[in-house]
């Protein structure tokens, strides 16, 4: 059977489409397969944060900062409006204790070259007036930004197609093909396809393709429930996170399981989209592959949002949705080749950093494929 491509990318989310774009840009013949549609999974059910100051100094933050640099010209490069806004971001601290936690992270981030400053609440409210007056304050970083993840994936896919990539939604990969100890192709519902490299960018669904080889990939779906408001006039100047998000992410031992908000891993994540709606998130729960929203979940998110942004009390919620974030035990994505399966490249497990890291992931994987 002939080789139809040099690279097969499995998964049409922000990661897969980014890999397809950068690989096609590097001159590779690329085929992207997705069993559903572009951005129909996690990328179509998340917020659009490109946030630097939530990242741990080290490879995590380095990658994020390289990615942020790629984002600056991406709209022009893709010739597609990905609704990128360089708005800056804030991480809100409710208490002195949370502020100390932020302070510790900020000190390390500054050493790594990221400018973050901790603002007392009066100062934070000068640029974000809707914050509650009785909060402790907020960490501010001008490098934080936002994007529309659905349009990002569509933009990558369209640009990849212009560069000659084949984008094939509706094709499900059933198994990896292995010959002479090397992954050489995929078996799909529409026949077999072969290539030099196979990139597994299927996020939370990535482990299934590897389990037949006895590899237990440590990616677990973590559900995030998000509320959508009616379209509103511009009212938020930044993307907003709260310290609870960082605690749920880096210090889960600090959470009190008897508290509903803690048990559901609720941390604020609010942005105003280009269309005026606010996305108000989010829970962080392990609930298998269940993408339903729960009453407890959406109530807890609403409660927390009202605490941080009391001005939103009268705003109407028109929709809720839930997405599955690909969680890994160390909070870092799984990138690169897989021992014992040459030919296979992993690009999955980004959890809440998939949007921030999408461009750099695509670029790094494309570099590796050279």
């Amino acid at each position: 059977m002939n080789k139809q491509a040099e690279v097969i990318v499995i998964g049409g989310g922000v990661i897969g489409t980014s890999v397809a774009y950068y690989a096609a840009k590097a001159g590779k013949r690329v085929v992207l397969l997705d069993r559903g549609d572009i951005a129909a999974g996690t990328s179509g059910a998340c917020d659009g944060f490109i946030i630097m100051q939530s990242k741990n100094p080290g490879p995590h933050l380095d990658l994020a900062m390289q990615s942020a640099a790629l984002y600056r010209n991406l709209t022009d490069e893709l010739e597609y409006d990905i609704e990128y806004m360089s708005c800056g971001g804030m991480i809100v601290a409710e208490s002195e204790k949370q502020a100390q936690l932020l302070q510790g992270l900020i000190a390390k981030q500054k050493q790594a070259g990221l400018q973050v400053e901790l603002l007392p609440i009066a100062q934070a409210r000068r640029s974000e007036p809707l914050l509650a007056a009785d909060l402790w304050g907020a960490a501010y970083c001008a490098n934080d930004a936002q994007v529309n993840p659905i349009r990002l994936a569509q933009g990558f896919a369209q640009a990849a197609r212009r560069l000659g990539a084949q984008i094939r939604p509706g094709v499900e990969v059933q198994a990896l093909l292995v010959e002479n100890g090397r992954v050489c192709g995929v078996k799909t519902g529409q026949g077999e396809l072969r290539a030099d490299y196979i990139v597994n960018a299927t996020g939370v669904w990535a482990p299934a393709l590897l389990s037949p080889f006895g590899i237990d990939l440590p990616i677990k779906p973590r559900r995030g429930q998000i509320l959508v408001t009616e379209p509103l006039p511009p009212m938020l100047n930044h993307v907003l996170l709260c310290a609870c998000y960082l605690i749920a992410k880096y210090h889960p031992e600090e959470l009190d399981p008897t508290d509903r908000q803690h048990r559901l891993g609720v941390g604020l994540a609010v942005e105003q989209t280009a269309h005026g709606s606010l996305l108000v998130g989010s829970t962080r729960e392990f609930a298998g592959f269940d993408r339903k929203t729960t009453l407890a979940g959406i109530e807890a998110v609403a409660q927390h949002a009202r605490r941080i942004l009391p001005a939103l009390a009268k705003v109407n919620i028109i929709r809720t949705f839930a997405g599955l974030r690909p969680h890994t035990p160390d909070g870092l994505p799984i990138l690169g080749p897989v021992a014992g399966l040459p030919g296979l490249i992993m690009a999955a497990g980004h959890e809440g950093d998939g949007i921030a890291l999408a461009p750099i992931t695509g670029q790094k994987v494309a570099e590796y494929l050279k």
Partner: protein
Amino acid sequence: MEGVKLTGALSADEQASVFPPNERAERGPVAVIECVQQIPCNPCEKACPFGAIEVGPDITNLPRLDLDKCRGCGLCLSKCPGLAIFLVDASKSATEALVMFPYEYLPLPAPDEIVDGVDRTGRFVAKARVVKVDTGAQREGTTIVTLAVPKQTMHDVRSMRLVAPGEVFLCRCCEVSETEVRQAVREGAKTVAAVKMRTRAGMGLCQGRTCRRLISRVIAEETGQSPADILPPTSRAPVRTLSLEALAGGDDNE
């Protein structure tokens, strides 16, 4: 297959060769001369009262724009027989840019009218507001239209299409037309959810209650699927809007 020679539209490289840097557009209006072939032609050179455009003695030279001399007056736009000169101005607002281009069709748009901003291939880019329609005598019959467009699209929008009075809106909350829905289906959106992802149809206040059937019908017509197989998008609470405050008052714990 790329480039003006093959497709009639400038390729990314060709565009890059003529775009002024974004910083220049942020300072104020500036011409974009999208002339990349050596045609024997030089009216642009004469048109500029500030001497910002130079072709030189060999009139097949490509025009060169002096970004500092160009004041963005736009006089060159109606002089270029190829209608290849545009003006961009990113200095007026943080989110919007102005794009000026020659427009030689009737009917003309009216100031403040909302039109479709289209790219070099006539493809829809963004809704745009008409800021000015200049039919002045010095334009010699070439009307210059100024559109306000989302800033990130200022290098994409190069013409406009009137939103036809006969346009049929399927999603009235998000103002999505039947044409846009059909285009999305032709590009591969075969479900109501996929159409929603591509066009925003059904994402508004009514959450698709009004337009869902209309969209299902278009999908059925375009794809030949049975309406029985075209399912509504996932139903999630709230099925009616409610305030954040009301939702926050609940204490469900399951």
